[in-house]
């Protein structure tokens, strides 16, 4: 049988890779890809703890479904923002969108 540690290591690894993506990529859409990886890692964690904990408590799965909804909402609005920024400034490189810096 699969011990819980395997799932937790998988989700920790996925989270760290997503973190690397968010911190190191130039393109704004690529940063959002990293955020998606992190959200998926969190979901795997939640469902693993549901399975290896109290099966009668559906809180793990419900939380995972709410995270699905939140991730979808965030991606939709984030990509809409990026597309509007692209229309104005013709770039999606995160470093170049610096109108608010002095």
């Amino acid at each position, binding site marked *: 049988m699969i011990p819980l540690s395997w799932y937790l290591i*998988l989700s920790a*690894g996925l*989270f760290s*890779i*997503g973190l690397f993506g*968010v911190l190191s990529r130039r393109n704004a859409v690529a940063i959002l*890809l990293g955020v998606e990886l992190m959200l998926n890692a969190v979901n795997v964690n939640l469902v693993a703890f549901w399975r290896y904990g109290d099966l009668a408590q559906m809180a793990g799965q419900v939380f995972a479904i709410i995270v699905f909804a939140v991730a979808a909402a965030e*991606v939709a609005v984030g*990509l*809409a923002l990026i597309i509007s920024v692209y229309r104005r400034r013709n770039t999606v490189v995160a470093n170049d969108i610096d109108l608010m810096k002095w």
Partner: protein
Amino acid sequence: MTAQQIIFLVVGFVTLGSALMVVTSHNLIHAALWLVSTLFGVAIIYTLLNAGFLAVVQVVVYIGAIAILFIFAVMLTRKDMRDQSPQLNKNWWVGALLAVVTFGGLFFLLQSWSGFSRTAADLPSGFDAIGRLGEALVSPDAFVLPFEVASVLLMAALVGAVYLAFNRK
């Protein structure tokens, strides 16, 4: 090595490998397609965890909608077909270091927890996960309020996305 363990190892490696390709791929469309592969891997992990409904919802919501949104967004925000510019930041090694430290920290923290190597309890027979999930989502003393708030959130996101991306000619 039971069959389940072998499947988990294969799927785990594919998932982590695809995730690495997502964050290091030069061509953004390829990165989005590697994301699809990662999401598939996560769906299989859900199936291994006996959360079949979540696995199918993952494919429908993430791959069927979010990944396609990403592909559309990448196509709409580029000046030419080929990405020539470098894709990693000037200080990407700081990001890599932080990622490794995070992973190490999480692993170290979890290892000192007693339940780290727990094995799964068997599912009770006749366990209807979907029915219980449905009841939990609409029952007043369970999770109906977060459920309704999530639907309001999705409505707000829908209106916001349409308004932001609307091209007023």
